[in-house]
């Protein structure tokens, strides 16, 4: 079996290399791939646009499109066309799409892919073809350690969130007893562990429980929390789970500060929990969501976004906008080929809507900022950066 598999793998790899090589050679004349004197470049935005997790991808795609529109309005020398590539959240679909983007559409740069799994499949292909990418939302830590020369991201990675949220709560609420609750998924469990470990190291007494996210009756977990009498509860998981837990915890008369991570930063959390119950809640995210913020840059962006898309910018909306702008600024500064764009990205340094956009050598964002949000009576608002914000 084994030699055969290896051989097959070799053939497949060779085939891929040939096809990609052809693709790379084919981009000569005035297409998106650029070249001196090009007047229009195509850039792509890639992610799950129609699949189950489209809610995480449509805001950044829309943000990127807003950025491109604003850029083109300035009548630049080189215009930019944005093309959307739908992966439905599947890595193999992402590979198909990126090959098409490179061969047929000859993209000069890519915003995305949105998810880490897609990124692992797509980034090596981009690397081979020397096409730069900026992802607004793929947060897996390992992506930054792959040695890709054309890869960038404008959000902090997963290592940053748990400790920063824990530090924020320790600083602002000084809990003595903390309950770590999570669903049974990798994401929720990992985040709860990270928050719990940070707090434990600071002498906070920790208890924990893991609940099936699909379970309707969680009264035994609520009973457990109640008997532990924590002054802080962290819930790892996505909003439907964390919202449901929040509701039952509040209904049981437990009023302790409740926190969750980026999987819960969504108004649907309030739908699941109820307006009354969604109170005294803190959420953390590497993303920066305006949520009716009055800060100038956020309000300007949110208003423009709403004017174009007729809805408020939600998760990763600002990051999509910033990722696009990083590429657009490179083009504005005279880059007309993928290589040149990549060079300029290395030197990028501007004030984005979400944060200062400046990349490290490995493509990671220079400062790993985590933002905290507060939910009061069902209203989500941005508190600010986790290491500075106060919990009113």
């Amino acid at each position, binding site marked *: 079996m084994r030699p055969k598999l290896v051989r097959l793998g070799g053939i497949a790899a060779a085939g891929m290399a040939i096809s990609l090589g052809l693709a790379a050679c084919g981009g000569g004349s005035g297409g998106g791939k650029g070249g001196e004197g090009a007047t229009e470049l195509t850039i792509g935005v890639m992610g799950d646009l129609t699949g*189950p997790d489209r*809610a995480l991808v449509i805001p950044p795609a829309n943000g990127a499109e807003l950025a491109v529109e604003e850029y083109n309005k300035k009548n630049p020398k080189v215009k930019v066309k944005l093309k959307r590539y739908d992966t439905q959240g599947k890595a193999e679909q992402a590979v198909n799409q990126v090959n098409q983007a490179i061969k047929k559409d000859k993209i000069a740069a890519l915003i995305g892919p949105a998810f880490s799994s897609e990124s692992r499949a797509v980034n090596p292909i981009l690397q081979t073809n020397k096409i730069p990418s900026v992802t607004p939302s793929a947060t897996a830590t390992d992506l930054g350690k792959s040695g890709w020369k054309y890869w960038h991201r404008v959000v902090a990675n997963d290592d940053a969130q748990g400790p920063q949220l824990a530090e924020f709560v320790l600083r602002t609420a000084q809990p003595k007893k903390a309950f770590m609750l999570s669903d*049974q998924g990798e994401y929720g469990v990992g985040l709860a562990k990270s928050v719990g470990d940070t707090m434990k190291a600071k002498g906070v007494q920790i208890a924990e*429980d*893991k*609940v*099936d996210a*699909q*379970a*309707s*009756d*969680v*009264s*035994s*977990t*609520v*009973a*457990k929390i*109640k*008997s532990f009498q924590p002054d802080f509860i962290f819930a790892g998981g996505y*909003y*439907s789970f964390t*919202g*449901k837990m929040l*509701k*039952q915890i509040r*209904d049981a008369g437990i009023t302790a500060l409740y926190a969750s991570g980026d999987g819960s930063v969504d108004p*649907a959390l*309030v*739908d*699941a*929990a*109820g307006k009354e119950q969604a109170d005294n809640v803190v959420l953390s995210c590497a993303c920066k969501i305006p949520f009716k913020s009055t800060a100038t840059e956020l309000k300007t962006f949110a208003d423009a976004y709403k004017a174009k898309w007729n809805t408020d910018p939600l998760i990763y909306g600002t990051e999509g906008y910033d990722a696009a702008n990083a590429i657009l600024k490179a083009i504005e500064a005279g880059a007309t080929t993928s290589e040149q764009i990549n060079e300029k990205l290395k030197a990028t340094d501007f004030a984005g809507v979400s944060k200062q956009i400046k990349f490290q050598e490995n493509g990671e964002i220079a400062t790993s900022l985590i933002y905290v949000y507060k939910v009061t009576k069902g209203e989500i608002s941005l508190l600010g950066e986790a290491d500075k914000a106060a919990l009113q």
Partner: protein
Amino acid sequence: MFQEFLNQFGTNTVGGLTAGAIYALVALGYTMVYGVLRLINFAHSEIFMIGTFAALFVVLQFGITAPTGLAMVGVLVMLILVAMAASGGAAVLLELAAYRPLRKRGASRLAALISAIGASFFLQELFKLVIIQPVFDKPGGNQIGSPRFLGRETLFSIGDTKVQLYHVIIVVSAIIMMIVLDQTVTRTKIGRGIRATAQDPETAVLMGVNIDVIVRMTFLLGGAMAGVAAVLYLGAYENTKFDIGFLLGVKAFTAAVLGGIGNLRGALLGGFALGLLENWGAAFFGSTWRDVIAFTVLVIILMFRPTGILGESLQRARA
């Protein structure tokens, strides 16, 4: 661990009975259809899901928020009637569309099972992709919250254990519905027809029983009970989702098997037993083990009593 178990025993018992009451009502639908057709109606979980959305629709449409006293009873009765109609009607349509054509053609039970699974997915996707967004103005894949309609007042306390109004309403409603159904099956003519068909369908025809009518009535009654369960569920947990029925359906089916599939009283017993086992087990070993414990107990009981606690009584003994 044991101390913790004791501390939370009361609360877990109340929670277990509440969840168990809902399992039991849903289990009735599985048990009745199995009794009459020897078919595991996989789409029954979606019949339940439809009931939750029907009740939610009424709650939102009438802007019901936290009624008290008689108003709450009135709301509850109205919701139950609406959800019974919705779930019962959906169950009848399901039978007509997914099972009757197969039955008429004398298809195998495996074919019916596959059809059941297909119908289950169809109904989930139908709600997710077509119905929820326009009706509730929320993405179809979202969990949708319901305003409160069952009171949370503490009625009495036993030690640390608070028994709240909604706990009592749910358990009492479930038991009342169970008695009504039991009497319907035992005392009425249609009930005799159902029992006769369950015990010997061919002979039932020789008695002039119209099997099509009986099957329809069985789906209607089972569906209606799922509708009641749906209202109580929505009142207790205050949210629903297109796939809300899946896990609950598995649990309810387990309850039906635990009590003795085909046995109405067994469904009640199985529901309560499963609810309690789950909660006690979760307190003892942690919530991660909740399902493991419940299903281990199921396996053990079935090893020693393959027909469940009360046996297959819709066929064998008096229903």
